[in-house]
C-alpha cells in the first residue's frame, strides 16, 4: 500500500513534543501551470476526492483543484459530519452505501485517522405517516442488503436512554428507523486526507484562485457557451488556465459557475444553520434524527453536542445566523432530551445548500462537452463525498457517466425522470 506523505504516530508526537521542530506541511503550494488535463473548481471534499481518484485509479495526475478560499472552507467544514446509507430510492441506497464502504477503509487508504465512528443512526418517527415511511425505507434498504430496520419506542429508549419516550410530550416517539452502520466522521480530517494524498500523487492544489469565467467554444449561446459547445479552460484571478475538462464541484455557488458555461441548473441556494454546545460527558451513543422536529444531533468524541436543522425557507446566498433558528432548535431539542436544559451553546454557524427539486444531486456529463457537474448536494454532500469523487473520476476518465451516477444526470429534469429522495434526505417535511 502506498503511503501518502508523513506518517503520524505516538513516537512522532513525542519527538515533536520534546523538540520545537515544526510538523511538515501536509501539501505543497505550487505555482499554477498554464494548462492541465483536468481543472476541478472547488477545493472541498468532492473536488479533492475527484482529484485523488483521478490520480490513483486512472493515472491522470496533470490535475488542478481551484478554490477561491482555502481547502475545505465551504460545506466540507460546515456540515454535521453524519454518514448513513438508509435512503428511500434504490438508486440512492446503492450510491450512498458505496460511500459508506469507502469511509470504512478511508483511514488506511489515506494514511490518516479520520475518526470514523460507526455508532448507529436513529431516525425517529412521531406520527403514523412517518412510521409508514420508515417501514418503506427499511424494506427498500433490506432488499439491497443494508442493515436497517424499524424499532419501537422501548428499543429506542435502550439505544438512547437520554431521549424522552414518554407519551405525554407534544410529539411522542412512536418508533424509529435503526441503521447500525451509520455514524460520524471528523470532516476536516477527510478533507486533509484527500488533499494530502492527491498532492502526493502530483495534483496541484491552487488555493485563493477564484474562477471568474468558464471558457467555451462552438456552443449555441453567447461567447460559444451552452449546448453543443465544448470547454477550453477557465479564467481565474491569476490568469487563464486551459483545460479540455472542467469539473464544477462547488456547493453554494454551483448555479453561478454553471451559468458561466451556459448550463442552467435546477437549483435554488438556501442556508442551513447548525450549532454546537459546550462539551460534557459522553451520554448519547448514537446519531438521532427527528423529521417532525426538524433536528439532528450527535455527540462528538470531545463531548460536544452537534445540532443541525432543516434549511432556512428563504433562498439566499447570505450565511448569517438567526435568533429564530436558535430558539426553534432549543425548543425542539429539549422536547427530545429535557435533561440537557442547562447546557450552553458554544457557537452557531451557517453554510449554503444547493437544493434540487427531487433532493438528489446533479452529476456527470452535461450538454457542453468537457464540462462536468458534481453539484446539487443539498444537505447530503458530506456523506456522499468519497463515492462522488470515485464516480466523477471514472466519468471524466472514460467520458461516460459511471453506472452509479447515471440516474443523477442533468437530463432527468427535462425528460421527467426524477429520483425523488425527499422522504429520506430532508428533515423539514
Amino acid at each position: 500500500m502506498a503511503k501518502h506523505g508523513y506518517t503520524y504516530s505516538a513516537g512522532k508526537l513525542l519527538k515533536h513534543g520534546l523538540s520545537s521542530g515544526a510538523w511538515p506541511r501536509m501539501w505543497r503550494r505550487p505555482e499554477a501551470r498554464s494548462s492541465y488535463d483536468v481543472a476541478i473548481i472547488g477545493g472541498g471534499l468532492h473536488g479533492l476526492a475527484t482529484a485523488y481518484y483521478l490520480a490513483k485509479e486512472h493515472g491522470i495526475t496533470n490535475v488542478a483543484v481551484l478554490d477561491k478560499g482555502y481547502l475545505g472552507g465551504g460545506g466540507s467544514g460546515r456540515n454535521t459530519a453524519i454518514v448513513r446509507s438508509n435512503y428511500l430510492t434504490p438508486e440512492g441506497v446503492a450510491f450512498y452505501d458505496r460511500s459508506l464502504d469507502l469511509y470504512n477503509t478511508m483511514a488506511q487508504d489515506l494514511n490518516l485517522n479520520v475518526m470514523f465512528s460507526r455508532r448507529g443512526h436513529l431516525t425517529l418517527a412521531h406520527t403514523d405517516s412517518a412510521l409508514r415511511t420508515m417501514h418503506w425505507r427499511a424494506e427498500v434498504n433490506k432488499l439491497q442488503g443494508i442493515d436497517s430496520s424499524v424499532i419501537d419506542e422501548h428499543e429506542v429508549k435502550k439505544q438512547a436512554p437520554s431521549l424522552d419516550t414518554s407519551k405525554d410530550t407534544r410529539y411522542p416517539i412512536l418508533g424509529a428507523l435503526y441503521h447500525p452502520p451509520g455514524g460520524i466522521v471528523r470532516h476536516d480530517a477527510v478533507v486533509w486526507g484527500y488533499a494530502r494524498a492527491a498532492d502526493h500523487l502530483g495534483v496541484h492544489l491552487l488555493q485563493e484562485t477564484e474562477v471568474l469565467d468558464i471558457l467555451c467554444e462552438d456552443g449555441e449561446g453567447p461567447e460559444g457557451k451552452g449546448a453543443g459547445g465544448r470547454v477550453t479552460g477557465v479564467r481565474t484571478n491569476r490568469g487563464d488556465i486551459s483545460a479540455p475538462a472542467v469539473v464544477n464541484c462547488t456547493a453554494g455557488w454551483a448555479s453561478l459557475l454553471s451559468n458561466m458555461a451556459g448550463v442552467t441548473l435546477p437549483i435554488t441556494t438556501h442556508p442551513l444553520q447548525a450549532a454546537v454546545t459546550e462539551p460534557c460527558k459522553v451520554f448519547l451513543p448514537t446519531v438521532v434524527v427527528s423529521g417532525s422536529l426538524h433536528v439532528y444531533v450527535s455527540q462528538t468524541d470531545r463531548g460536544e453536542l452537534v445540532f443541525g436543522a432543516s434549511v432556512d425557507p428563504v433562498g439566499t446566498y447570505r450565511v448569517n445566523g438567526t435568533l429564530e433558528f436558535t430558539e426553534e432548535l432549543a425548543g425542539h431539542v429539549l422536547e427530545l432530551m429535557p435533561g440537557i436544559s442547562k447546557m450552553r451553546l458554544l457557537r452557531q454557524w451557517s453554510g449554503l445548500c444547493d437544493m434540487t427539486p427531487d433532493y438528489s444531486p446533479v452529476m456527470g456529463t452535461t450538454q457542453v462537452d468537457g464540462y462536468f457537474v458534481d453539484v446539487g448536494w443539498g444537505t447530503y454532500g458530506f456523506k456522499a463525498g468519497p463515492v462522488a469523487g470515485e464516480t466523477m473520476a471514472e466519468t471524466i476518465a472514460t467520458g461516460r457517466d459511471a453506472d452509479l451516477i447515471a440516474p443523477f444526470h442533468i437530463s432527468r429534469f427535462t425528460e421527467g425522470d426524477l429520483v425523488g429522495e425527499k422522504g429520506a434526505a430532508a428533515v423539514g417535511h
Partner: protein
Amino acid sequence: MIVVPCPNCGPRNSSDLRPCGEITSRPDPATASLSEWRTYLYLRENPAGWVTETWYCRSGCRRYFTIERNTATNEIRDSEVS
C-alpha cells in the same frame, strides 16, 4: 431575520409569509413541448443579486405579491400586489 413589506399588511417577518421563488416566464401550456414545460418547472437562474420574486402572505391578507430582493444581501426594494 428578513422583513418583507406586504403591500396590504405592512412589514412582516419572513416566517409569516411563504417565499414562492423567482419569477420565470411561463410557456403557453397549450403549445409548449414537455421539455419546455419541465424547463419552466425546474430550471432556475438562481443569481446572487437582484431577483424579482413572488411571496404569499399566508398569515395576513393571503394575497400574492411581487418584490425585488437582493439574494446576496437580502435588501428589498419594493412590493406590489400581483
